């Protein structure tokens, strides 16, 4: 069970240039909208033809520009969950699920459909049309339809983007359940680090049509090497940076010299620190200390975001603010009345980044 992808495609000013391979895992493709994630899936599915490259699924060549191999989508056996689910409006739930069951005798088709209806808790809705279903039900039908087709790779294109928060969290469990049952490779395209974190073993980070970084998800999120990865993994604080030693970096926007456990590359451009990583201190810390003043506060139900100005910066300059996040209990109990002036970021939390 493996998928190898190495494709190039030019579309006007945009060019897609991506390569990765997966091996029996759930792989996320994470990137901002418009970075070419969906285009990549469409190339793999055979909906869009790459200009050059090679796509191999389980030792089956799906596309090879040199050997002039280009299988039709029908021959590729890839499952594609579309953002809007693409259920056939004129067919019932049952018919939608049955449509992908190929080659089997009629009796087996019926049996398989019934099985899928039960697995996805859709038996009562079998005779309904997609237009009569809620978003969550539609997604279950779409998942059932794909699994009934028994694809060799499952591709989910922003699977939760069409759902509201409540349903989204419910569907997280449904999809998790399904991913446990499914034994092939899974590709999940998303712009949400939260979804990548929940579902994926490994991740490809994309930016403007290119692969920026790839690897094991937890490792990549913990130690991002590029600005794109750091941003996509949720880091809020970035400062222009200058190398001052193998483990020393100067944060120009915050006017502080920082120690980092990571080796500072010569090409360092930015330094990033996550909003959670700032620790309040009573006195000025000796290393990695910040002297900050509150700019504004946004209180959420469980978490509070505080934006602060670094010492030496114009207090009205809102481009170089530092975000600090703390849970609302601590905020209400200690910090709201007694805002700390000094903060420290551990050397482990200082991430030197390149472009």
């Amino acid at each position, binding site marked *: 069970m493996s998928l190898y992808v190495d494709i190039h495609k030019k579309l006007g000013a945009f060019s897609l240039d991506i390569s990765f391979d997966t091996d029996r895992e759930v792989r996320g493709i994470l990137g901002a909208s418009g970075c070419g994630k969906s285009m990549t899936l469409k190339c793999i599915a055979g909906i869009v033809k790459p200009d050059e490259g090679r796509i191999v699924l389980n030792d089956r060549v799906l596309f090879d520009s040199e050997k002039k191999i280009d299988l039709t989508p029908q021959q590729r056996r890839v499952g594609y969950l579309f953002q809007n689910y693409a259920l056939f409006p004129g067919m019932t739930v049952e018919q939608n699920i049955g449509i*992908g069951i190929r080659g089997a005798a009629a009796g087996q088709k019926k049996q398989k459909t019934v099985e899928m209806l039960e697995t996805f808790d859709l038996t009562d809705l079998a005779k309904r049309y997609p237009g009569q279903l809620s978003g969550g039900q539609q997604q279950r039908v779409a998942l059932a339809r794909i699994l009934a087709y028994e694809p060799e790779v499952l591709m989910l294109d922003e699977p939760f983007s069409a759902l509201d928060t409540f349903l989204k969290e419910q569907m997280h469990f449904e999809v998790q359940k399904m991913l446990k049952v499914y034994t092939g490779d899974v590709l999940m395209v998303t712009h949400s680090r939260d979804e990548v974190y929940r579902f994926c073993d490994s991740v490809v980070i994309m930016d403007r049509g290119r692969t920026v970084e790839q690897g094991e998800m937890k490792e990549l999120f913990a130690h991002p090497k590029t600005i794109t990865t750091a941003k996509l993994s949720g880091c809020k604080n970035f400062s222009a940076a200058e190398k001052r030693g193998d483990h020393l970096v100067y944060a120009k926007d915050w006017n502080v010299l920082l120690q980092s456990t990571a080796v500072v590359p010569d090409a360092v451009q930015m330094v990033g620190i996550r909003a959670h990583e700032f620790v309040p201190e009573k006195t000025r810390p000796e290393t990695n200390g910040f002297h900050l003043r509150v700019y504004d506060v946004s209180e959420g139900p469980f978490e509070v975001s505080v934006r602060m100005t670094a010492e030496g910066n114009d207090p009205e300059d809102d481009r170089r603010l530092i975000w600090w996040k703390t849970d609302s209990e601590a905020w209400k109990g200690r910090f709201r009345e007694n805002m700390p002036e000094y903060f420290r970021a551990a050397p482990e939390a200082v991430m030197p980044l390149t472009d």
Partner: protein
Amino acid sequence: MDLSPILISMKTACTAIFFTFFLGLLVALITVRLKSEKIKMVLDGILTLPMVLPPTVAGFFLLFIFGQKRPVGIFLNSIGIKIVFNWTATVIAAVVIAFPLMYRSARGAFEQVDENLIFAGRTLGMSEWEIFWRVIMPEALPGVLSGGILAFARGLGEFGATAMIAGNIAGKTRTLPLAIYSAVAGGNMEEAYGYVAILVVFSFVIVVLMNVFANGRRKGRKHG
């Protein structure tokens, strides 16, 4: 009241819509599938022309093609088909004038089908044929049918091009619109009222039927 215009009109409109419908559908399908945007635009322009030109100009072109002294006309005459000033001409005029309505409606209906449905069909292993009949056609059908109904109504009301190529021969090529014109020109208002009433009622019923059909279908989808 002479009933022959009613019969001629119905016969013309029914025969014409048969050709208009399938021709429009076919051409719409071909244009939708064209890859080159430029060819698409030029072709669309030519195909829409009969709708935007004055019908007399369209009729003029038809005469130019089918006239008895033109190559096509001579050829058809030699194999025994007479067009100009014959009933066949009323059909040709109605087809040419109503064609753009059919073609444009059908094309719009096909273009509105969600691309993802087609892609989904392909990735689920459905053949292109199956996708066309089970996904695209059911989705496009309301638009295609309403285009057909509009084209029928337009064919029924055709006047200018018909007058040019088929003339106004009572009992032969005099359709309802021409009969109304002749009646009014001859000061025979009573007869004109009758024809007008028939045409108005008939056209109205067609449009209402179209709406009923479109609504019924939509409701069936959502709640039925």
